[in-house]
């Protein structure tokens, strides 16, 4: 589904990604872990199409198409979703408007009619219940005045409504207490499907207790230094990231 080959990227004149290779197949959940500043968030943003991040080399295909050639909105409509680490507040743009506009944009590009108002509302209610969000969130500005945890729930809510083929969740677990972490994890797990894939970008192993990945990768210095199954996450938790660096040198 997603094939990243030798991807390099530069942000504000600084090389951050230095040859990332990764393949994610349908039905899989991958976790990308790594120390701060290793390039995890840059990778997520580059995949979503952030324009001020400059791709300097390599290629990315999504369902066989050249992902990097698409503007961000078309990547989204093709089924890629980025859950932001720091979701931006957009006062004055209603949360429910954005959800509806996003869903309709996706349907339009798939040649489907716009969502019926009643159908939309019952869909939203159902997903909000799963995320344990009160309906008052709908009428507020996008993320406006939301706490850190509420913003993350809102990201997952958007993901559940849009049902992307590939969800990239950038530190969706950070800043969550244990109850919120369970809710968010349940949301992500509800989306698991043989035809979908999830990439979790995380700093801590904690999230992976609730969403068990098929593969774990350690990103460091702009490269994937080590890959393994879910036991790698536990080993990292025990031995720290330094262990990976040292084992590479050795």
């Amino acid at each position, binding site marked *: 589904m997603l094939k990243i080959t030798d991807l390099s990227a530069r942000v504000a004149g600084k090389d951050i990604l230095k040859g990332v290779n990764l393949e994610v197949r349908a039905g899989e959940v991958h976790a990308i872990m790594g120390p701060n500043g290793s390039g995890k968030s840059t990778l997520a943003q580059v995949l979503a199409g952030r*324009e001020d991040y400059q791709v300097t080399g390599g290629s990315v295909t999504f369902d066989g198409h050249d992902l990097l050639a698409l503007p961000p909105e078309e990547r989204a409509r093709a089924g890629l979703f980025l859950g932001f680490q720091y979701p931006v507040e957009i006062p004055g743009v*209603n949360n429910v*408007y954005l959800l509806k*506009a996003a869903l309709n944009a996706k349907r339009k590009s798939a040649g489907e009619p716009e969502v019926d108002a009643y159908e939309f509302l019952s869909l939203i209610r159902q997903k909000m219940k799963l995320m344990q969000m009160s309906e008052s969130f709908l009428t507020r500005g996008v993320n406006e005045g939301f706490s850190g945890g509420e913003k993350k729930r809102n990201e997952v809510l958007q993901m559940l409504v849009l049902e992307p083929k590939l969800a990239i969740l950038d530190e969706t677990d950070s800043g969550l207490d244990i109850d919120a972490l369970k809710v968010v994890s349940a949301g992500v797990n509800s989306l698991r499907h043989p035809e979908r894939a999830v990439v979790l970008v995380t700093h801590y192993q904690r999230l992976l207790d609730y969403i068990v990945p098929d593969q774990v990768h350690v990103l460091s210095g702009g490269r994937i230094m080590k890959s393994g199954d879910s036991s790698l996450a536990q080993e990292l938790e025990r031995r720290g990231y330094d262990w990976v660096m040292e084992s590479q040198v050795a």
Partner: protein
Amino acid sequence: MSGALQSPAALPMSAALRSFAAQWQTRSPDSLAAVRERAMQRFLELGLPTIRDETWRYTNLRSLAAQSFVDAPRKPRSGIEPNPAPSLLGESGRAAPLLMVNGYPSLPAAGGAIEGMEIHSLRELARVDPNALLRFLEPLSDADQKRWGLLNTALFVDGLYLKITGRVALPLVIQHVATGDGADNIAYPRIIIEAAPGSSATIVEHHVAQGEHTPLSNSNTQIALRRDARLEHYRVYATDAGATHIDSLDIRQDQGSECKQFTIVLGGGLVRTALEARLGEPGASLDSYSLLVGHEARHVDCVNIVTHGAPETRSTQTARAIASDASRVIFNSKVIVEAGAVHAQSQQSCRGLLLSPTAEIDTRPQLEIHADEVKCAHGATTGRLDPDMLFYMLSRGLDRDTAQSLLVYAFLADVLTGMSVASARAAIESALIAQLPDSQTLRKFR
């Protein structure tokens, strides 16, 4: 009229000034002749404001000064179309709008009335009760923001005096129709609103244009709020791109009175609006909102001067300026807290949004404080659409035009949500959206 008017010998009069002096000669003397003559004399001595005048720094009237003007007709030859623009009360608007064509109200000679409000013609009032009118015309001021007001005082022929005596339930819409019979017309609309103690009303002044030629409009509105009176006032400019509009609004507030004022610029080619407010007694409060939309080659120059002249007075100014294409929007606001106006509170918030590299926005919030124990805040920012917000919306699949339009719309929300007349808000939103990119998509989200 009488009076041998003199211009300072040293300065040759511009074509515009000569034509204004010629208009003066055509006026028949009325009971206001003495003050009108002084106003005209002062105006000719001082001349048109120039960019050397403090509140005119950004608006050059040189080309206007080179033109000659004649009075716009009292009634256009073709008559007024029944509904020249969408009513700000919507299709089900209940109160009939008051029509003013080139400053001349359509009223029965005896005036009119609606529940809680008397409506008089200024011409008639000047005949039967000149003193009631004179107290609004004086004192004359030399201030440059009042310059066009002097000319209006000298030359207005008719207008409206609205006396709010009780609680007026429905918003009253005054529709100013500007319609000329040539390219050189000028009109002098004049409105005086006096709200009696404890009264309340909502008044909407809606400026529209009709026909091929739109006169230069030199309009002037005065508002006096007596003790505990409440008024929500709108001035909305929706004239065509060729129109020049110079409007002065003067607000005087007595004890405990509350005024909410909206200045909405959605039309016109050159629009200059001035607001001067004086919170003259304790407890008076003013909330002013400005929504200034620069579109195509429009030039919008908005000046607000709010004076706190008594203790415990409160004012807010919320301005949102948007400039697209090659337009220019200027917002200057000044708050003056006079000595003795202790515990005054004021807040100025001005935000500008540039939508094109050839557009320009200038904002200048100023504070002049002569009293202790006051709470005054001001802030001004101008920028482009926030790239993080834009990327967020794109990453959810919205197309760029829709995302931008939603952000622009959101930017204006602070002003729009302040409006308590739902129908006026809806009509203003519609007109506004029509001037934003991708208006079709936006309509669906209202």
